[in-house]
């Protein structure tokens, strides 16, 4: 490689590093500012953390029950992930390996609804929840996870490509029930595909904002993103920018840590083309 190519290559790396910095700097400033006092933040920026984390935390914890919001979000995310994973796998298997009337109809409907924008169902969904008297409960945030068309579609394609039908013959001859076969044989084979979808479902649920905001009224029941969004109403926190940054940091850092461990799966999930909610 000649000198010119080498310098071009160096420039390209410089560009990539700059772009990465641009991606990370806002989060870094968030973490740094979460440890500085409101006054320090107003007088200038710093790239190194300060020493006021405890002080900021005191202001935050006196005004907002973030721990509760965290638990609410965690509870919702775990329920949603479990339901999405189990029922999507079950449906995908049912659609792919059994022949019954209506299978085609289900599959077509599912494909169509993958493309219907969510604002079309939002108002009707809210009205339905309202009529059922389920406003301010978790049911409307959890139960819809049983039907996740995009996940079923992905898992159906996945299972058809990884599991030959012959695998089912032996246990059937041995007299295992269909449910047992699903749980003992099919689920483990589908596990990698399910894991990819589960991570996406978890993050989607954790970050979900609009629907919980519409449905949950009681402050104590709010998940984290809704609490963060309501922040502007809490005067003691908004007047202290350090506390504001800390609240945002608390909502973002767990996902960032999780990403360090799962980034491979998350990215392979997007490459597969369907983490989109």
């Amino acid at each position, binding site marked *: 490689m000649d000198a010119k190519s080498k310098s071009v290559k160096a420039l390209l790396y410089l560009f990539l590093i700059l772009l990465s910095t641009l991606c990370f700097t806002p989060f870094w400033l968030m973490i740094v500012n979460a440890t500085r006092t409101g006054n320090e933040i107003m007088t200038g920026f710093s790239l190194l953390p300060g020493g006021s984390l405890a002080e900021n935390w005191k202001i935050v914890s006196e005004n907002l029950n973030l721990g509760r919001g965290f638990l609410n979000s965690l509870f919702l995310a775990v329920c949603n992930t479990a339901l999405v994973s189990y029922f999507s796998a079950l449906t995908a298997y049912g659609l792919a390996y059994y022949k019954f009337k209506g299978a085609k109809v289900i599959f077509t409907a599912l494909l169509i609804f993958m493309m219907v924008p969510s*604002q079309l169902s939002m108002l009707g969904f809210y009205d339905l929840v309202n009529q059922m008297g389920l406003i301010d409960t978790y049911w409307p945030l959890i139960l819809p996870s049983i039907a996740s068309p995009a996940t079923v579609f992905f898992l159906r394609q996945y299972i058809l490509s990884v599991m030959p039908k012959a695998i089912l013959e032996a246990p059937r001859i041995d007299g295992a029930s269909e449910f047992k076969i699903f749980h003992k044989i099919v689920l483990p084979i589908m596990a990698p595909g399910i894991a990819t979808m589960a991570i996406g479902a978890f993050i989607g649920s954790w970050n979900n904002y609009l629907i919980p905001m519409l449905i949950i009224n009681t402050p104590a029941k709010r998940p984290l993103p809704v609490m963060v969004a309501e922040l502007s109403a809490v005067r003691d926190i908004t007047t202290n920018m350090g506390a504001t940054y800390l609240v945002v940091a608390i909502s*973002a850092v767990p996902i960032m840590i999780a990403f360090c461990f799962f980034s491979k799966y998350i990215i392979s999930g997007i490459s597969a083309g369907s983490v989109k909610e």
Partner: protein
Amino acid sequence: MAVPATASERRAVKSPKGGLERRNRYGILFCLPFVLAFLVFNIYPVFRTFQMSFMNYKGFGKETFVWFDNYVRAFKDPLFRDAFGNTLKMWGVNIVLQLGLALLLTVIFNDIKYRMKGLGIFRALFYLPNLIACTSVAFLFKTLLDWRFGSINQILMTMGVISQPINWLTGEGMTAQLVVGVVGAWMWFGNSFIMLMAGVQGIDKSYFEAATIDGAGRWQIFSKITMPLLRPIMLYVAVTSLIGGLQLFDLPYLLSGTKGEPGRALYTSVFYIYTTAFTNHQMGYAAALAFVLFLIIAVFCGIAFKLMNQKED
């Protein structure tokens, strides 16, 4: 991901003899929970929205049938038109930056001369902003972009890029729209990049090698091989971004302090639908707006498909 051979699907369906009928009932059983939830939470709400769009309905109490009144009103509503215009502007800035950057990165990482390393780590860093809740991102930028005390103005002034603090979000409408577009691109370019990379990885490497041996330049390889072969995935990225972009809500809603300020610059279509339904309690009218927006999205997608296919000749 490759769609599995239809042969295996056929095999799955035609299994030999005994107990077949009875066993296939389990298929219905396995799909039942999904079908029930799907009917209740996916299909019914869309039909209900459609039904409401012909009603005068507050979201509670009585509803009266008003024929096409809501639709007529929707087509004449200047606020909806403005909101749609705003959406287009913000999405325009967003998509140009987002796809442009993603494409540039795809080219850089696929250059066979430079063979850039570190794809894994760069990809992860570029994707990071996607993962953080929109509420957190919006709040973070709102605070960072505060014109008096925000870190971004402080940094720019220290570096001497600007002499006066810029009023990003509470001054000119155009500036605020630009900010939403840029923040959106910042959030989502990593996602587009990963999808484009997945598309490129599907291209046979020997095309590039053959072209290089034949003495094709970098630009020729890009425009004659990479771009045409990437067209389907580009179309997919563009269309999903269009569908998502025309439904832009969280980011402008949260960046604006929930009223679309400055002025009404950050008011988007879905923002308007949301306010109409839940603040003004005109559920029926909001439902009609939702369907009008859906029609517009469908038309736009149709045009996008047409344009992309035309280029092929």
